[in-house]
């Protein structure tokens, strides 16, 4: 047979992948990829300063010059701008390449102060490294160097030393293109070019710390880290940030057993290397002087320091007595969303499998029913960012889940994903949306129904044309709905109803629930939710694996947090356990939380600090904090990744799971957990969705492994609620969180604490004007209600704010000096009147 015949019969061979030759070595490349990236994958690191793989190249520093053979002979090209082409021949070692690179390096050094010995970056500085390996020996530059005032604070968190700056455009590009906060900018020209902020407009970006991390020299330094350590003294471990549920990958760095710095790790499915400033700098809270280093026991009205065995005995006794006097259901556990999956599982087992109570809830009445996880087809962040349309039924993601905001912003700006925002007020993403439809608080599901064509088009503010355009867009391709709790002053029923309506109308839509606490998804999956056993299995249908591991399961479905608090307030809870939860600050009905803490027979808190809630406890068990314990965490997509201990816990503080094991022992039971691995083994055996999340899987996929699950379930049931008619003289309240608040991570981190904006009532400027009240004035805010019990009042500072729609009042929740929490009572919506003082 001739060769030709063979060829003809064989299926057409796929064309060979494109390849290039670098320094005589052939490497395969991806079409269109940049030469600098292709070379790096192929093992050739081309020096660079301005290029950053997550930003558009600018080709400014000229360090990455290499020689490419072209039709008109070899030429020097910047490899960060040059897309590869099949057959390209590249030299990174030719003498003229070396000369050009050395020349650029020399140019960069002529005005660089070379103050490496006192520079934070010294030891991890690309400029220093390049200089040592390739730089000119002795300086030929004999003139005076450029001088600028030494570091200037460009924000509360970041300082800029312009003498060290090499003008690579990384920070400025990041600020504009990635964060959308172009508050730092090049100014002046040529040799006088510098980076500056505008007078009185500091670089107050939630993402400013990233500029410090990507600065290739020591020009930008972070105030919380300046002069704290030299890079060679740092030890580090890779981990996952649990400040919110995005779950950014980080390296946790420490020196002498103290946390000093977090750096973002480029996790492709999640954070792309970025972190928000809260996540980056709240290590200060772990190091805080006010951390609880040992247990406390209430004696004579005072919380006094005691040893562990005494504290555990006391706690065990309180639980035992409650069970004895009121049965298992007189014990309730709130919290667990701030710990690891293992912590949560151990506590679920203690509560449900040992004590026998189902009054267990990791959410604090500020989330959504667990049905958004179990009853909707789920989406990942990547899927949202690749959808045709993203529908936002979510709180302000820039405030609550900052890096998810970055990802969606990128999707809208660079991938042309169309974002449709349905909300009561402007959010950080509003400028990047394709359509924004505003609704009054409580009218979210009415708006969704109007869009879907099965509701009254007149109830909402949007025009019929807008509604039709959005409807058409929903049919234009894949849709991902981002769903979360938009306002603490509204019933979650609206969101559930809106979401289930969308699911019913859009058979192919998927959903990304955005519950915000660090490991809330993991805690719920591990069983810290009423009515369900670990793995979201029904209480009445325990799996064989569970039955093998647990001695009992609760007899009845339990209560959620709000109902637990109501029961406690009514004296029906004899022992209330707060597992890293602070309902007195965090629950939307703060007054109820206070009554519950007072009404509970006893309170046991497992916490890192004495909080508004834990200070009322009878026993406080000191918990290990972030960076002090290992385990796994689950982000909002259901992605499980490792969290790693870097330092030993403060004092004698212990992991939550270990505390659970010890308490079980006090109750005469054995959880079977001596080591973390024991918990992990059982967790993976009991929760089928986690069976594949083995240590090996986490090592080979450090970005995390998606938990399996009922990904296609469509069982979420909406409940139609009719909001009461709005009173023309009242403002309908919307209350949501901002990045910086009075929460522990911020309030106990001294660099962040001052950044919280403070409690205030925001009204549209026209509304404020109509009241005749100037921005900044204190006013009396009164709840409008027929039931006199519901009429609550608070004094708040009024702020005129164009982001708020007319007729709506917005207040940030849990700010220092918060009073809005006093107005919320769990009603469907809250209307308020504003009175001058």
């Amino acid at each position, binding site marked *: 047979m001739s060769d030709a015949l063979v060829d003809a019969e064989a299926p057409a061979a796929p064309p060979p992948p494109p390849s290039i030759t670098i320094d005589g070595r052939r490497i395969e490349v991806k079409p269109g990829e940049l030469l600098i990236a292709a070379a790096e994958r192929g093992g050739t690191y081309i020096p660079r300063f301005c290029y950053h793989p997550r930003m558009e190249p600018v080709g400014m520093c000229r360090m990455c010059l290499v020689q490419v053979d072209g039709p008109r002979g070899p030429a020097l090209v910047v490899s960060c701008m040059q897309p590869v082409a099949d057959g390209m021949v590249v030299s990174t070692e030719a003498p003229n390449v070396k000369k050009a690179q050395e020349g650029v390096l020399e140019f960069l050094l002529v005005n660089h102060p070379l103050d490496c010995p006192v520079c934070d970056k010294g030891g991890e500085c690309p400029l220093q490294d390049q200089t040592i390996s390739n730089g000119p020996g002795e300086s030929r530059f004999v003139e005076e160097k450029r001088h600028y005032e030494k570091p200037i604070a460009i924000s509360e968190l970041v300082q800029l030393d312009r003498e060290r700056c090499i003008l690579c455009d990384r920070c400025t590009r990041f600020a504009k293109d990635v964060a959308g906060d172009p508050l730092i900018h090049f100014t002046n020209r040529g*040799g006088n070019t510098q980076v500056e902020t505008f007078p009185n407009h500091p670089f107050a970006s939630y993402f400013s710390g990233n500029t410090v991390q990507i600065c290739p020299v020591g020009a930008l330094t972070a105030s919380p880290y300046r002069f704290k350590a030299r890079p060679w003294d740092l030890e580090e471990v890779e981990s996952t940030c649990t400040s919110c549920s995005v779950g950014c990958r980080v390296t946790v760095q420490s020196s002498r057993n103290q946390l000093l710095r977090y750096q973002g790790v480029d996790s492709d499915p999640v954070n792309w290397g970025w972190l928000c400033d809260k996540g980056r700098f709240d290590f200060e809270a772990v190091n805080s002087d006010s951390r609880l280093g040992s247990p406390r026991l209430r004696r004579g009205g005072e919380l006094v320091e005691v040893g562990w065995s005494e504290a555990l005995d006391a706690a065990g006794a309180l639980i035992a007595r409650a069970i004895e006097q009121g049965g298992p259901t007189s014990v309730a556990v709130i919290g667990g969303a701030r710990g690891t999956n293992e912590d949560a599982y151990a506590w679920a087992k203690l509560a449900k499998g040992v004590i026998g109570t189902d009054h267990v809830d990791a959410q604090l009445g500020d989330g959504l029913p667990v049905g958004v996880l179990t009853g909707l087809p789920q989406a990942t962040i990547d899927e949202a960012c690749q959808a045709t349309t993203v529908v936002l039924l979510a709180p302000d993601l820039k405030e609550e889940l900052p890096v998810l905001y970055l990802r969606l912003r990128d999707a809208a700006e660079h991938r042309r994903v169309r974002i449709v925002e349905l909300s009561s007020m402007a959010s950080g993403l509003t400028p990047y949306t394709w359509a924004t439809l505003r609704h009054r608080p409580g009218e979210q599901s009415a708006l969704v129904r109007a869009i879907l064509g099965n509701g009254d088009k007149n109830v909402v503010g949007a025009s019929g044309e807008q509604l039709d355009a959005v409807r058409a867009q929903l049919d234009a391709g894949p849709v991902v709905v981002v769903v979360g709790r938009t306002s603490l002053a509204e019933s979650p029923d609206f969101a559930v109803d809106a979401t289930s309506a969308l699911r019913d109308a859009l058979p192919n839509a998927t959903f990304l629930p955005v519950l915000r606490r660090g490991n809330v998804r993991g805690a719920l999956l591990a069983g810290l939710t009423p009515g369900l056993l670990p793995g979201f299995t029904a209480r009445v249908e325990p799996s064989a694996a569970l039955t093998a591991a647990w001695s009992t399961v609760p007899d009845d479905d339990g209560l959620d947090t709000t109902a637990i608090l109501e029961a406690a307030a009514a004296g029906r809870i004899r022992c209330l356990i707060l597992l890293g939860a602070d309902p007195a600050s965090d629950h939307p009905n703060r007054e109820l939380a206070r009554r519950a803490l007072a009404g509970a027979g006893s309170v046991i808190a497992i916490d890192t600090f004495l909080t508004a809630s834990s200070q009322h406890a009878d026993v406080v068990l000191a918990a290990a904090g972030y960076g002090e314990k290992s385990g796994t965490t689950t982000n909002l997509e259901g992605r499980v990744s490792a969290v790693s201990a870097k330092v030993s816990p403060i004092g004698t503080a212990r992991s939550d799971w270990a505390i659970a094991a010890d308490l079980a022992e006090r109750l005469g039971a054995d959880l079977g957990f001596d080591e973390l691995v024991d918990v992990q083994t059982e967790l993976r055996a009991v929760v089928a969705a986690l069976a594949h999340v083995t240590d090996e899987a986490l090592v080979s996929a450090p970005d995390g492994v998606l938990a399996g699950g009922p990904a296609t379930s469509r069982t979420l049931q909406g409940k139609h609620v009719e909001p009461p008619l709005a009173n023309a003289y009242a403002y309908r309240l919307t209350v949501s969180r901002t990045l910086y608040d009075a929460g522990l991570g911020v309030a106990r981190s001294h660099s962040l604490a001052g950044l919280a904006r403070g409690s205030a009532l925001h009204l549209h400027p026209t509304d404020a004007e109509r009241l005749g009240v100037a921005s900044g004035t204190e006013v009396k805010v009164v709840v409008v209600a027929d039931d006199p019990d519901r009429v609550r009042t608070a004094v708040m500072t009024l702020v005129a704010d164009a982001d708020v729609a007319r007729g709506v009042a917005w207040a940030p929740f849990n700010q220092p000096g918060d009073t809005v929490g006093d107005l919320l009572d769990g009603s469907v919506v809250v209307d308020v009147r504003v009175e001058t003082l």
Partner: protein
Amino acid sequence: MAVSTGPKILTSRFELSDGHTIDRYLATGGYRALAKALAMAPDAVTAQVKASEMQGRGGAGFPTGTKWGFLPPGVFPRYVVVNGDESEPGTYKDRLLMERDPHQLIEGIVICAYAVGAAQAFLYVRGEMALAQERLAQALNDAYAKGYVGHDIMGSGFSVDITLTWGAGAYIVGEETALIESLEGNRGMPRLKPPYFPASKGLYLQPTIVNNVETVSNLPWIINEGGDAFASLGVPTSTGMRLFAVSGHVNRPGVYEVPQGLTTFRDLFEAPEYGGGIRGGRKVKAFIPGGVSAMWFFEEHLDMPLDKPTVDKAGSMLGSGAIVVMDDTTDMVKAAWRVVRFFARESCGKCTPCREGTTWLERILDRIIAGDGRPDDLELLLDVSDNISPGLAWPPRQTTICPLGPSAVSPIVSALKRFRPEFEAYLAKAAQHRESAHV
């Protein structure tokens, strides 16, 4: 000595005190070409420009018709941007065209916009040129009022706006991609190439034609008289009439419209109707043939014709038609220093070699002139230059984005190659001084 002459294509109204008014313009044949062009198909207009073989007058000398042909078919909107930023030292002609015959330019812009199918045109005038801005504003207001610009031009159904805008002092904005950045309200920093021409991605990343004021001012004549008529002027490799500004040590510095290729540098310097000889009957020591970015020429180049390929081959360029004559009294170190200082101050700061290198070169020369030169300085000058423009060749190779950085190398290489002893004399004096200070 008889010099070749040609018709006054560009300067026909320069002598008229009211040549800038619409009345005078109309009375002298103005807007006839526009009417004629609007009666033609756009492609036919482009064909005339192609036939003219006109090379752009902004500096690069790229054939205008060919450039228009680079517009990607079917991509709209497209824009026309007219480059009136004239800032290359020695260059002086666009300002005259804008001040003395603004309607000729406006007519050219509308013809260009019609030919390329532009949605809007922008006339970017150098910030420092107040009179040009006034004359153009008045001319545009009149042309709009009379229906030569804007909605439904001359009843043809074709509409295009011209927005007059202006800079604020930055030489680099003359570079076309920097000009576009500036026109977008940004810092005037050149964009990365490729794309090599804004024709594919320009203003707002839409297809954009950038042409020089002089280039566009030729269009009415080309349409009136035909592309072939234009091509028959000058020589085939450099067609048409062209404005050259002759400055420096000549008796009659001035801006002269001459046929390209048929005129030599010597003609321009010596003919009584042009430069009228070197001042004081002295000799030419060196001259810059096409703006300070160009390599310098010397006596042996005097008889070279003003023809693009000839000048290119000789290792320099006609650039922006700016010829600076230096007689034998000139201090070449100071001449080179002044040009280097210019580039150092005008670097946009984007590329490291240009930002740091040009400043460094300036400071070395500062030092040499101040009497503080060091023995290694000349090698240092050349090596720093080489790191900005590897090989010190012509046309320059560059480690930078745009040619500004490498342009700073031209005066150093030119002066040092030819007049090294003058530099050495400075160094020797410095050495002497240091020695006596020691004793």
